[in-house]
C-alpha cells in the first residue's frame, strides 16, 4: 500500500511541528484513513483536541506503517456530525465511540454508538443529559423462550478489577458477549493537559499498574522526542532490562493463572511463585517490584553496578530453570491442551479487521511487534524475536506467551552480559513548542501508543494514551461467540487485558 501523499511520515519517537502536519478536509481525511487501514496500516491512535485559537476541534490520525517502519499523520477539522468510519474501517469503532463520548459529537451510521468510559463530556463538563453512571446504557438483547442473559460484575469474586460483562446465552452457549467498562476512569489524559508537572510521571506509572515500565518508557520517549534528546546507551539498556523483566513476570503470572483456570494445579502454584521471583529482580534494581521510580524522562534513576549484574544473572538462571520445569509440564499434559485448543478462536482476518495488537494478535498469526517494526532504544541494536502462532485460540495465546518468556530470558541475559558502559542520564532541554510526537512501545500486552502535542508555552495541549487493552477488549468479546459460557474465564485470562489501562 502506498498511502496517499497527504500523509506526513515521522519515525517512532520523533517530534514534528504541528504546522507541518497536513490538514485536509474531513471527507478527504476519512477516505485516506479508510484506504490506509484497508491496506497494511494500523490505526494506532485517533486523538482529538481543541487548539483553542479557532474554537473548533481537530482530529489527527496516527497510523503505523510496519512495512515502512514509519508513522503516518494526517489532520482535519472535526465537524459535529460526520459519516462514521467504522462501517468501512472496523478498527476505528472504539476510537469513534471514545470521541463521541469525550466531545459530545456524533459519528453518523456508527453501528453501536454508546459510551466506553462514561466520562463527562469535555465540551460540556457538567455532563449535560448524558448519564455518567458507568454501566447504565443500552445492551444488545436476544429474544426467545429459552435464551437468557447472564450479567457478571462489575464486582467480581477474587482480586480483579471492575468490569461488567453481559452474556447473551442459549443454554450454555454464548451468542454474544458485551463488555462494559469505565469503572476505573480517573481522568488521566485530562490531568496531563497543561503538563508536564511533577505528578505527571506518577500518573503514567499507575496508569496500568502491571505495565508501569511500558507506560513510563513511552512517556519518557515522548518527552525526550519533544526535547530532542535521547538517553545514553546504558540508560536504554537498563530500560529494556526492566521492560523484559516486566514481560517475563506478567507472562509467567498469566501462564500460571491459565493453568489455574483449567484446574491444573502444579503449574499454577509454581508460576505464582516464579512471578514473584521475577518481580523481586525488578525490586533488586530499583526497590519496587513493579519498577516504579526507575525510569524518568532523560534518565534512569538506578544504575546497575557490577555486583548487581551478577546477582541478576544468577537469579535469571534460577528463574529459567524453574520456569522450564513448570510451563512445559502444563503444555505436555493432554487434559490441559484439550481445554486450551479450539477455545476462544479469533481468526487472523478478524484480528486484523478490528485492529488487535500484541500477544493476542500474534496468536492469531499477525506479525505485529513494535520492537521489530518501529524499534526504539536498545531494541534498535539488539533484536527481540517476533513469535507468532496460528489458530488464534487459547492454546495459541498460551504458546506465544511461553515463547516470549524464553526469548526475553535470552535477551535479558545478553543485555546483562553486554551492558554498555557510560552514564545513564542526559540533561533535557525544554520541550519544543507547537510540536507533536508519537511514542510506540511494545509493552507486555502489546503496542502502547502515547501521542502528545505542545502549545505555544511548551505545555501539553493534549496527551493521548492508547493502551493495548483498548484495541483488544472487543477481540475478547468476539472470541466468546459460539463458545461455552464456562470457558469465559479461560478466554479472559488468555487475553489478560487491563481494565484501568483502558479506562484511563
Amino acid at each position, binding site marked *: 500500500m502506498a498511502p496517499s501523499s497527504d500523509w506526513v511520515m515521522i519515525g517512532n519517537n520523533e517530534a514534528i511541528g504541528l504546522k507541518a502536519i497536513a490538514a485536509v478536509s474531513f471527507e478527504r481525511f476519512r477516505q485516506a484513513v479508510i484506504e490506509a487501514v484497508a491496506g497494511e496500516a494500523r490505526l494506532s491512535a485517533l486523538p482529538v483536541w481543541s487548539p483553542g485559537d479557532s474554537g473548533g476541534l481537530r482530529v489527527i490520525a496516527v497510523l503505523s506503517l510496519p512495512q515502512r517502519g514509519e508513522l503516518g499523520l494526517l489532520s482535519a477539522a472535526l465537524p459535529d456530525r460526520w459519516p462514521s468510519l467504522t462501517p468501512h474501517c472496523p478498527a476505528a469503532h472504539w476510537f469513534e465511540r471514545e470521541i463521541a463520548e469525550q466531545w459530545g459529537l456524533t459519528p453518523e451510521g456508527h453501528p453501536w454508538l454508546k459510551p466506553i468510559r462514561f466520562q463527562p463530556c469535555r465540551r460540556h463538563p457538567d455532563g449535560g443529559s448524558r448519564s455518567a453512571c458507568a454501566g447504565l446504557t443500552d445492551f444488545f438483547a436476544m429474544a426467545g423462550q429459552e435464551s437468557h*442473559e447472564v450479567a457478571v460484575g462489575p464486582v467480581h469474586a477474587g482480586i480483579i478489577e471492575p468490569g461488567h460483562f453481559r452474556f447473551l446465552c442459549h443454554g450454555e452457549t454464548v451468542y454474544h458477549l458485551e463488555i462494559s467498562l469505565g469503572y476505573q476512569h480517573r481522568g488521566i489524559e485530562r490531568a496531563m493537559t497543561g503538563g508536564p508537572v511533577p505528578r505527571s510521571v506518577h500518573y503514567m506509572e499507575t496508569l496500568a499498574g502491571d505495565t508501569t515500565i511500558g507506560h513510563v518508557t513511552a512517556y519518557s520517549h515522548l518527552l525526550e522526542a519533544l526535547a530532542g534528546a535521547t538517553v545514553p546507551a546504558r540508560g536504554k539498556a537498563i530500560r529494556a532490562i526492566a521492560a523484559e523483566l516486566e514481560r517475563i513476570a506478567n507472562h509467567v503470572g498469566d501462564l500460571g493463572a491459565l493453568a489455574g483456570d483449567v484446574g491444573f494445579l502444579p503449574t499454577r502454584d*509454581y508460576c505464582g*511463585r516464579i512471578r514473584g521471583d521475577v518481580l523481586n529482580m525488578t525490586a533488586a534494581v530499583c526497590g519496587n517490584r513493579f519498577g516504579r521510580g526507575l525510569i524518568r524522562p532523560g534518565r534512569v534513576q538506578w544504575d546497575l553496578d557490577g555486583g548487581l549484574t551478577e546477582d541478576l544473572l544468577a537469579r535469571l538462571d534460577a528463574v529459567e530453570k524453574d520456569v522450564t520445569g513448570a510451563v512445559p509440564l502444563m503444555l505436555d499434559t493432554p487434559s490441559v491442551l484439550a481445554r486450551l485448543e479450539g477455545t476462544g478462536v479469533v481468526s487472523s482476518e478478524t484480528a486484523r479487521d478490528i485492529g488487535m495488537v500484541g500477544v493476542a494478535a500474534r496468536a492469531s498469526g499477525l506479525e505485529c511487534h513494535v520492537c521489530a517494526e518501529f524499534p526504539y532504544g536498545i531494541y534498535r541494536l539488539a533484536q527481540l524475536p517476533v513469535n507468532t502462532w496460528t489458530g488464534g485460540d487459547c492454546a495459541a495465546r498460551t504458546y506465544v506467551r511461553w515463547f516470549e518468556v524464553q526469548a526475553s530470558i535470552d535477551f535479558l541475559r545478553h543485555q546483562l552480559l553486554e551492558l554498555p558502559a557510560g552514564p545513564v542520564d542526559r540533561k533535557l532541554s525544554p520541550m519544543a513548542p507547537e510540536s507533536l510526537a508519537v511514542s510506540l512501545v511494545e509493552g507486555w500486552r502489546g503496542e502502547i501508543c502515547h501521542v502528545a502535542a505542545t502549545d505555544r508555552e511548551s505545555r501539553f495541549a493534549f496527551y493521548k494514551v492508547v493502551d493495548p487493552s483498548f484495541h483488544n477488549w472487543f477481540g475478547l468479546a468476539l472470541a466468546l461467540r459460539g463458545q461455552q459460557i464456562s470457558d469465559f474465564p479461560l478466554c479472559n485470562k488468555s487475553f489478560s487485558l487491563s481494565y484501568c489501562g483502558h479506562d484511563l
Partner: protein
Amino acid sequence: MTLTASILHWLAAVLLAPLLVGVINRTKAFFGGRRGQPFLQVYHDLFKLMGKGAVYSQTATWIFRFGPMLGLAVVLTALAIVPAGGLRALFVFPGDFVFLAYTLGLMRFFTVLAALDTGSAFEGMGASREMQFALLAEPVLFAGLAVLAAGSGQLSLSGIYNQLWSAGMRPEGAPVLLVALTLLMVLLAENARIPVDDPATHLELTMIHEVMVLDHCGVDLAFIQYGAALKLWLFAALVTGLAIPLRTGQPMVDLVVTIAGIFITAVVVGIVESTMARLRLVRVPQMLVASLALSLAAFFWILR
C-alpha cells in the same frame, strides 16, 4: 463387638470427614510445591462459620433455609447404611442401596431448589449443570451396585460388602475392581472434584456445585460444607470396601483398615486433581457415559 464397630464407623465419619478434605488439600499442595493449609483447617472454618450470622434475601422462601438442614440430615442418615469394609452398617435392610441412592437424590433435590430460590442467574446455571450431570451419574451408581447385588445374590449393602473378598466370592475380583473404578469416577463427579468441577475456583461461570451455594452463609454454609465432607466420606467408604481385599473377621481391625483405606482414597483423589486439568463442561457427560459403559461391562461379565 460388631455393633460397637458399626457405631464407631459412623462416629468416625462424623468426626473425621472434614479431615478427609484436609488430606486432599495437603496432597494437592504437595504436588504444587507448597506446604499447604493445616490438616485441621476445615474444622477451623466450620467452627468459624458456626459462629457467624446469616444474611437472607427478602425474596428467598423457607426452602432456602431448609435446604442445608435437610442436606446434612440426609447424609447423616445415609452414612448409617454404608458398611465399613465387610462390617455391617448400623442399619441393614433389603434394598437399602436404593434408599441410599435416593436419600442422596433428595439432598441434591433440595440443594437445587434452594439454589433456584435465590433467583440468581449463576445459581440457576449451576443447578442446571448439577441436574444434567446427576442424571448421568445416578445410573452409573445403580449399575455398579446392581453388578454387586446380582453377583452376590444379596439385596443389602452390608450383605453385598460382607461377601466380597471372602473365599469363593461372588462376584469375582475383576468386575468388582471395575465397579470400584466407576464408583471412584462417580465420587469425583458427585463431590465436585477435578476433572468434573474445581472446588478451589472463584470463577462463578465455571462452577457446578459451588455456584449453587454462593448465597448461603454462616451456619447454613457450615452445614453444606460439613455435609459435603460427609458425602465424600460416604463415597470413599463405598470405594474402599470394594478395592481393599482384606476381611480379617476382627471387627476392630477391619474398621481401622477401612478408615485407612478411606484416607488413601482421599490421597488418590488429591493425586488425580494434581495431575490433570478439569474437563471442558461439554466433555463431562462423556466421562460419565464412559463409566456407565464400564459398569455395564462388569454387569455382562458376571452374567456370562
